[in-house]
C-alpha cells in the first residue's frame, strides 16, 4: 500500500531525511514518532508529493508519487500540520472544491461530502464560515477533506497540536475510528498520544528510522530489564551486602544512607525482574532486616523512545 525506499532529503548541507525505508500494507493507525526536527513533516510532505526528495522513491499502491503523481495522489488524503483551509468559505463549500479537485462529480461528490461530514461530526457547522469555527472544528474540516475520494491512506501531520485537552480527546477518538476501515498514518512527538491510538509505531530520529513495530513488541524487544528500588531499616553497607550476593543483580546505586535507614537502586540483569524482587524480599526477611519499601520500575515506551532517539540505533 505504502512503500518508502531509501528516501533522502537534503537542505543544503543538512540531511533532514536519511535513507529512510519502510512499508505499510495493512489497515490501522500507524504512528510516526520522533522529536521535533526529526524529519517527520519532511517525510510526510515528500510522501504526499508536496516536496521533492533528493533521492529514493515513494509508491502508493504501486504508483510512484513523482512518476504517476495523479494516480498516487488520488489514493492519499493529507492533512498538513497547519490545516490548509480557505477561511472565508463554509466547510460545505470547501469540501466541494476539494472533492471536485479529486475528480468527484454529481451524486458521488454529494455522497462523499455527506459521508465525510458525518464521519468527522461537523454537520452543525457545515454552513458557518471556517474562520468562525473553533480550532478543533477546523481540524475536523481538515480531516474531512483528507477523507474525500476514499483514499487508501490518510496522512495526518500532528493532528492534535494546539488543541485543548477535550478537543485532543475528540480528535484521537475520531482517528481511532478512521483506522478501523483504512490506513491512517499520524505523526506526533507526544508518545502517549501515539501509544493510545496506534497499532504500530515508526520511530524516526535525525532523519533515520530507528524502530518500526507494535508498541508492546517494542517494549519486549528493546526494553532494558529495569530497576528495583529498596528502602531498608539498616545502613547502606549492610543492605548492599545482602543484595550483592543475589543472582541477576547488574549493579547497585546507593541513593540515601543513614545509620537506621538507607535506600538503594538495584539494576536488574535478568529478564524476570519480579523473580529478583522476590529474592530480595526473601533475603531481607530471612536476615531479620525490615524492608520499608520495595518498588519495581519497568522501563516505559517513553524510556525506549528517549534511548532510541538520543542514541544512533537503526531498525
Amino acid at each position, binding site marked *: 500500500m505504502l512503500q518508502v525506499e531509501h528516501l533522502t532529503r537534503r537542505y543544503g548541507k543538512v540531511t533532514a531525511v536519511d535513507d529512510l525505508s519502510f512499508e505499510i500494507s495493512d489497515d490501522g493507525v500507524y504512528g510516526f514518532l520522533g522529536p521535533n526536527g526529526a524529519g517527520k513533516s519532511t517525510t510526510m510532505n515528500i510522501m504526499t508529493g508536496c516536496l521533492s526528495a533528493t533521492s529514493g522513491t515513494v509508491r502508493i499502491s504501486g504508483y510512484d508519487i513523482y512518476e504517476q503523481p495523479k494516480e498516487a495522489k488520488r489514493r492519499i488524503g*493529507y492533512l498538513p500540520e497547519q490545516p*490548509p*483551509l480557505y477561511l472565508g468559505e463554509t466547510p460545505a463549500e470547501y469540501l466541494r472544491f476539494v472533492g*471536485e479537485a479529486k475528480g468527484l462529480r454529481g451524486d458521488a461528490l454529494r455522497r462523499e461530502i455527506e459521508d465525510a461530514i458525518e464521519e468527522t461530526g461537523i454537520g452543525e457547522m457545515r454552513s458557518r464560515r471556517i474562520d468562525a469555527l473553533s480550532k478543533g472544528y477546523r481540524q475536523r474540516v481538515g480531516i474531512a477533506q483528507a477523507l474525500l475520494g476514499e483514499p487508501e491512506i490518510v496522512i495526518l501531520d500532528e493532528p492534535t497540536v494546539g488543541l485543548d485537552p477535550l478537543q485532543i480527546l475528540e480528535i484521537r477518538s475520531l482517528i481511532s475510528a478512521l483506522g478501523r476501515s483504512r490506513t491512517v498514518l499520524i505523526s506526533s512527538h507526544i508518545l502517549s498520544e501515539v501509544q493510545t491510538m496506534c497499532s504500530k509505531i515508526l520511530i524516526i530520529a535525525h532523519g533515520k528510522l530507528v524502530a518500526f513495530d507494535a508498541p508492546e513488541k517494542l517494549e519486549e524487544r528493546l526494553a532494558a530489564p529495569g530497576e528495583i528500588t529498596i528502602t531498608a531499616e539498616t545502613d547502606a553497607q549492610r543492605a548492599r551486602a545482602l543484595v550483592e550476593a543475589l543472582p541477576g543483580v547488574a549493579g547497585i546505586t546507593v541513593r540515601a544512607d543513614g545509620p537506621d535507614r538507607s535506600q538503594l537502586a538495584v539494576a536488574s540483569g535478568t529478564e524476570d525482574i519480579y523473580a529478583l524482587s522476590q529474592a530480595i524480599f526473601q533475603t531481607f526477611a530471612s536476615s531479620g532486616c525490615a524492608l520499608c519499601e520495595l518498588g519495581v520500575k519497568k522501563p516505559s515506551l517513553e524510556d525506549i523512545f528517549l534511548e532510541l532517539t538520543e542514541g544512533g540505533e537503526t531498525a
Partner: protein
Amino acid sequence: MSAIFTHELRSYFHSLTAWVFAAFLLCFVGIGAMMYNIQAAVSNFEYVLSLSSLAFVVIAPILAMRVLAEERRQKTDQLLYALPVSTTEVILGKYAALLVLYLVPLAIIAVYPLIFARFGEVYLPTSYGSLFAFFLLGAALLAVGVFISSLTDNQGLAAGIGIAVILFNYYSVSLSEYMSSSALGSVIALVAISCAAGLLLKLLTGNGTLGYWTGFGLSAASIALYNLDREALEGLLPEIMSALSLFERFYVFVNGVFDVKAVVFDLSVIGFFLFLSVQSLEKRRYN
C-alpha cells in the same frame, strides 16, 4: 483544472473583488466615454479605451496580487500540491478565472460602441479591434501579475512590484527617449539585463551555478559583440525599451491598424509569464 477555475471564480464573486474590479473599470471607461463621446462629441470609442488603459497600472496588480501570494500566506498551497492536480492546471485554472472576471465588465463595455452608433457615425471595426487589443493588454498584464504573485507571500509587496513594473512598461517609450543611444549605453543595458536574467533563473530554479553562469555568459556575449560590431549596438537600448512596451502595441490598434504581430507578442508574453509562474510553483516543491 475545472475545479480550480470554478473555485477561484466562486471566491471572486462571493467576495467584493469581482464587483469592485468591475465597478472600477466600468467607472473609468464610463468617465472616459462621457468626456470624449458625449461631452466632446467625438465618435471614436477607441480613444476612450486608450485613456482607460492607464487603469491597468492599478487594477491588474491588485487583481493578480492575491492569486498565489494568498495561497502561500494561508498555507493552502500545500493542499494544491497534495491534490491530484498539476501545477500547470493550477496556474491555468486561476488565470482562466481572472480572464473571465475581466471579461464581465468588458462585455458591458462592448455595448457602448453600439449605443453610440445609434446617435452618430462610429467606425465599429476600429472600436472592436481596440477592445480586443484592450482585452489582450489586460490579459498580458494579468499574466505578469500572476508571476509576481508567485514570488512572495506578501500581497502588498506583490501589488507594489506589479504597479512599478506596469508603470515602467507604460512609460517605457517616453523613457527610451532619454536613454543613451550609444553603443556603450546599449552594452551596459545588455549586461544589466543579462545579470537580471541570471538572477531570475537562480530564483526560479534555486540553482545558483546555473543562474550565475547564464548571467555571466550573456554579459560576456554582449561585451564581445560590443568589441566586434559596435554599430549593431547603437540605438539598441531605446529600441529594446520600445519593443517591450505592451501599451505601445495596444496604441497601434487604437490608430486603426489590426496588428497581428502585436497579437502574437501579447500571446507570447502571456505564455512566457504563465510558464514562469508554473516554474515558480514547482521550484517551491524543490526548496
